[in-house]
Structure formats: C-alpha cells, structure tokens
C-alpha cells in the first residue's frame, strides 16, 4: 500500500465576492479585534486541482509559505478558501503554496498565491444611486459583487 500523494495544483485564482451573513459577522468581529475597518468583501481563493484526492479523514493541510490555511472547502474544480482581511494578500501574495499532513514535512506545489483583483471593491463613479451612510455604502458596494455560490459554479 502506498502513502497518499499530495494533490497537484493547476491554477490559483482570487475572486472578490459578496460576504455571507456569517462572513459579515466574522468581518465585524475581526474589525473590532484588529481595530481597523475591513471591507465587506470575501475574497474567494480558488485552487484548481488536477485530480481531487480521495475523500478520507486524513487531509492535506494547505499552507501559504508557513501559514496554515485553517479551513478549505471542495468545489467542482478543486478546493477554495475565503479571505476576509485583504492584508493577508499584502503579506503573502506571491508566496508558495504547500501541502503537509503533519506540519513538518511539506510538499511544494510549485504554485504561488495570486493577488486579489485590484478594483475588487471599487465603485464606478456616477453609477447607481449611492446609499446613505458608511455601512450602507459598503453594503451597496458589496451587493454589486457576485455571490460566492456563483463564483464557485
């Protein structure tokens, strides 16, 4: 019997999407914890795999360099995770993606973390009626982003 092989990554794509209600609660919590105002955006990092590994209880933990991605999820082309603090990309974009099963032995995938789209949350001037208030404006901008479910189709 052979030990499991780490999956092969064929592409990494970052898409700005609307936060879910749970994301919004997390964004508010994170904003309070870090004392900074985070945008109402969920960045979906899609990691396309050549072949999905078999469903087992042991799993390949995904790292960006030495930073563990705490949760990821399956979608039709591979796995994805969400980032709520864009600072994550400032700190880690261009860094290598690695898999590990024990936090000690790492498998370099040869792929790097992509940067998020530059104008992910920018609002074209003169378009649409501006909602009143800072929160309402932020929610209005977020509403123009795609749903996460659509991003993952």
């Amino acid at each position: 019997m052979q030990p499991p092989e780490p999956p092969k990554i064929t592409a990494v794509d970052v898409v700005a999407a609307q936060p879910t209600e749970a994301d919004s609660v997390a964004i508010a919590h994170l904003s309070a914890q870090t004392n900074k105002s985070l945008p109402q955006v969920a960045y979906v990092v899609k990691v396309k795999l050549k072949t999905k590994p078999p469903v087992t209880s042991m799993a390949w933990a995904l790292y960006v360099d030495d930073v563990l991605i705490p949760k990821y999820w399956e979608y039709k082309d591979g796995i994805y995770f969400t980032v709520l603090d864009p600072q994550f990309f400032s700190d880690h974009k261009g860094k290598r993606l690695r898999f590990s099963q024990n936090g000690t032995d790492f498998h370099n995938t040869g792929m790097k973390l992509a940067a998020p789209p530059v104008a992910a949350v920018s609002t074209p001037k003169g378009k649409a009626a501006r909602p009143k208030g800072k929160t309402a404006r932020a929610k209005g901008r977020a509403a123009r982003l795609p749903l996460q479910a659509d991003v993952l189709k």
Partner: protein
Amino acid sequence: MAGSEIASLKNPGLAGDVQFDTVIYGSPPLAYSALLSQFAIYNAPDPAYITGRINVSAFANIGGGATWPFLNTNLPLNGHVCIPRGRGPFPLAVFAHGNHNPTENSTPGYLYLCQLMASHGIIAATIDVNFLNGGNFGENDGRAIVHLEHLKQFRTWNGTAAHPLHGKVDLTRILIVGHSRGGEAVGHASLFNRLASIGAVVLDGLPPFALGPYRFGLTAAAAIAPTDRQFTPVTGPTVVPDSYYVIHGSKDSDVFTFEGYHTYERAHAVDLANSTVSDGKFKAMLWVHKANHNQFNSIWASETAPGVALTRANQEQVARVHLGALAQAVLLDRAEYLEVLRDHGAAATWDPAGTELVSQYQDPERVFVQHNQEGLVAPVVSLPVQGTVAADSVVAARQLTALVGGFATTTITLRLAWSALGSRLLLRVDPETLPAERYKVLALRVGQSTEVSNAANRDQDFTLEVSSGSRTAAIPASSLHRLLYPDPPPFGPAKIVMQALRLPVAQLVECGVDPSDLRSVALVFDRRATGTVYVGDLQFSN
C-alpha cells in the same frame, strides 16, 4: 481487582436484557436528489421525533461533494436513536461518524454499538454529519457543533412534557463518541461545551446563529481512530477537559499516524506547577493490532486488502467489548468495568482469540515518581518526590520523539538503551516524600521500538525491582503485560505505543516491601541482552 471478581463480570460486548426501540429522527421536508437516495429515510422520521434546523455557517461550508437540499444555515438534525423501554431516566450516548464519501450515508454504521448500549439501558444515537463530508479541511469545529446541537435536541425532548422522551434522559451522564474526524470533533465538543462563545459566535441560543447554550454533563469523550488538530482553536490545540478514551488500529490506512495519541497526551497532562493536583478525570487508550480504519463503521468498506486486518466481525467485537466497558463504567456506574480500561487483560476472554492489544490508563489519583516533563535534561526524580537517578550501563536520554508519527509531540519520553545483561536504571527516593502506601499500584508505561537492538517480533522484557530497606521485590515486566514488538504499519515508520504496566502495591507487600518506607525503584535489564525501550509516567496510582 481480583481475577475472580473480573471473572464474575459479564462480557460488556454482549447484548443486555433491556428491550429497546429504534427510531429515526429528522427535519423534513428534505428533497434529497437521486444521488443522495440513501438519505431519503430522514424524510420520514418518527412523527414524535421531528427536529429543528441549525445554522453552522460560522464554522463550515457544505456542498462540495454533493448537492444537498439545504444550506449550511439550515442543516437538519437527523439521526437514529435506540431507546430502552421503561421509565428511565437513562444515560445518553451519541455517536458521530467521520469524513467519507458524502453520498454514502455513514450514520447507520454505529447502530451495532447503539443497539448494544440500548440493551444495557442507555439511550444511544448515531447522528448525520454527512453534509460536512467531502474534500474539506478544518471543519471539525463544525462537526463538534453539530454533535452538541444533537445533545441539545435530546435536552429539549427531555424537557418537553408531551414528548415520549420527557424525563427519560439523564443529562448528567452523557458519553460522546466520534470516529475519524468525528473523533477529533468530540474533543472540540468537550471543550466547546464549557464555553460561552467561540470567536464571533455567542453560544446563547440567540440569533444570528442560535447555537448553544450547552453546558452538558459530559462524563467522557471517546474517539475511535480520530484525527487531531485539523481544527485548532485560537487558544491552541484542543486539550480535552473531560475524561478521554481513544481506540485506534495499527493497520489504519486512512488515519495512518496515531493522531489521537497526541490528543491523549495533551489531555490531563502533568501540570509542572502543581504536579500533585488532579483535575479528577481519567484518560485511557487502546491500540489494536491489525484493526484498520473503516471497519469500526459497519457501513464503510474495508480500506485494507483482504487478510491484512482483523475480520470485520472481530474488529466490531473489540469495539463492542471496550466501548461497552467504557459505557458500563461511566454511564451505568459499574466502576468495576474500569478495570478493562486500566488493563485490557481484564477483557482477554471477551476479545476475539489472539487479538493483540496495547493499552494505557492514567488515573486521576496519582503521584509521579518520574514524569520526565521537566525538560530535555538528564532524567531526574520528579518533584515533590525527592531522590536521585543513576543509570548503570544504560543510555538514558529524554527526548521529544513523536513515537506514533504525525505532528511533533510536546510530551517528553525517556529512551533507555542497553547492550549488556544486568544494566539498570535506578531511582532512589526519599520515602518521606513518596506516600506510596496511599495508592493501589506502581505504574509506568513502556514500549519497544523497531531499532536493531530489539529482536524483531519478540516481546521485550525486563525486571522491576522495588525496594524498601532490606526487602526487595523483583517482578518481571512480562508478568504484568506483554511488551509487544510494533506491528508493521500500512506505510511509514512503525509506531512505538507504550504499554501501561500496573504492579499492585499489594503484590509488593506480599513480597515484604513496605510501601510506606519505599527506597528505590529500578528497571533492571536482565531478561534480554540488548534492547531499546521508551518509558514514561512512573507513578503510584489507583
């Protein structure tokens, strides 16, 4: 416990005399697709057992491996529950599966254990967490929340005057059991059960998530072949606060490192600042040679080739006997069954013939003579016991070796290597600082490695010498338990799983040793010319 007393106990793996009914509970309507036809049973639950929905969106996403007829904001509470007939109240045991093909319903795979427990007077359920299965990672906090919300459902039924379970659930005696990722999750559930909030989620039962409150009377958390640290709380790796039990097989080809051992080591570990203070909880471990991963679930196909692992019937029998003993002890107040946890030999006539097992047990009442957690320094006698350590022709070195693979360990073990008969490790102690007479056993844990100094496939052995002044007892380790050679793993290095050796103080007294005046404990390597063993937690205990 005397052998005759053990002999008088009934096999806890056999069905009891209590009649029970099995019902399906669930949250209809659920329009499962044809691909998910195995879940259609939850569309027609017992009408008295309709459940609510839960929102785990703060913890987990769903939908990668299957298209479910619900979102992570309104997950169903589906399950099968075996309910003893009678007035009760009955203790509660709730089982959860782990990660598997999400289109195959993993939930019924523990009915064989639920039926056993119900036949002894325990309400026993197995729950649907299939919607979290698939190519996911880090969702085990979500599994823990689902498990706790099922407990909450039973509390609701118990408190609902018109419900068949009204007043029948003993909420002070609850055992949670999980397999695989569900096994990791019971550790998180044990932790979450005591919390008022998890991150941004307040466990007060109010919107937006309406989760909690919990605060159940968990008597123990049991993990079958669990993973470890796939979810890590912000406070660090989960330390299980309740009594903890873990069982794992040497031929596990899924969780192929003994992940639960790390959970076991973190639970109820020695507190260096208060090494004599106990939290009142026990922990126990069972390592089953030739058991694999999937056969603990009666639905899952074996992941190993034919002939490699125990037969499914034998593996299920091991689970019945040992989880049955755990349930008898912690849920039915049959403390005599704790002996099976203390020493798996107590179950020798109940386990399938020829089954090789390794076990550990740590009692809440103990005083360490040498726990080795002071650091990577020369071995010493552990405070508050005072004494000295002398190694005669033995290379004694503390090390942070991950004996069972997986994540780096934080538990220090003592490696002892010798190449001449008569080598010894001698611990001299000040009897004024060691109240050995208050305890029932001298215990330690010892395991041999596959290093060349150990003959392949041969039990290791040595002599325990315990002395009080002029009287010395010399007890072969092999008279207490076999020190098995590691079973070859499916892949990767062999695991060094230490066996607990428990030498009754009464046996020392029979040999003339006065436990109130105990002067030394020695490991004398006079039974094998060479060897390498790993040793830990030398203690007087109950």
